[in-house]
């Protein structure tokens, strides 16, 4: 069974929703990077690996959303 095609308006709404989410996650990553750098330069290395793991998790989330967007594009009316 083929995926239900999205209309142009639906795709625009989907990408707007994704963008809001991705921008929030990227801002969170920026904060995480600066906080980790500050802690590490101050000699506190306990947060380094958990922060790296959290950042990698955020990246995986963003890449997953982008892959979903590519999938949405493929289901557009009239094929790829």
């Amino acid at each position: 069974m083929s995926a239900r095609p999205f209309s142009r308006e639906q795709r625009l709404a989907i990408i707007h929703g994704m963008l809001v989410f991705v921008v929030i996650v990227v801002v969170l990553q920026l904060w995480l990077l600066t906080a980790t750098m500050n802690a590490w330069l101050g000699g506190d290395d306990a947060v380094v690996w958990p922060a790296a793991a959290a950042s990698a998790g955020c990246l995986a989330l963003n890449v997953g959303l982008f892959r979903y967007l590519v999938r949405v594009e493929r289901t557009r009316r009239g094929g790829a």
Partner: protein
Amino acid sequence: MTVPSDPRAPIDPAINTPGREGLTGTAPANLYAPSFDREQITIAPDFTPPDLQPAWRQDFPIDWPQDLYVERRDFMKFMVLTSAAFTVGQLWIAAQNWYRRRSGQPPRQRIASVDDIPVGGAIGFTYPNEQEPCLLVRLSTSEFVAFGQKCTHLSCAVIPRPEEGSFYCPCHEGRFDLRSGVPIAGPPRRPLSRVVLEMRGRDIYAVSVEERTT
């Protein structure tokens, strides 16, 4: 009764001849049906019909909803790349941390003799390597402190000002307390790295470096 057509009659090759629509092998059944695909409609930015648009826009039509979609998709791609860059930054910190731990504590190093520094005076030295300038300050006859010379804001070299009781960073007017190295003015937020000292007879040794957040 209908008379069968003469099979020898010449065939009209045009597919739009009345009576030939929908014949298998000549034209699709919906050839003459009006097509209406919303994906293919070009919408101007002011949403007015194409006939009301200026000539240049009729000559070079842009599908604005599609254009909006594509630019948001490109922006999202850029944000995902930014996210990847931040993750690389985190991994770089982790790699540097691994390297720092692997290096262990620096070796003990003689800095100077007590007699080399007058009270209220300071001398410069490097510790634990040549790239790390430090300052040894004599606060009183028996009190010595040593700190890294790099400002914790943007790594400018701080200048000791014992008469004011502070280290001064000329780049952005930062100040650190002379006794503790904690920031007291300007943009720096972290204290100067502290060099742990040890007295052996009349010699002063640096034994380790303490990075601090507060």
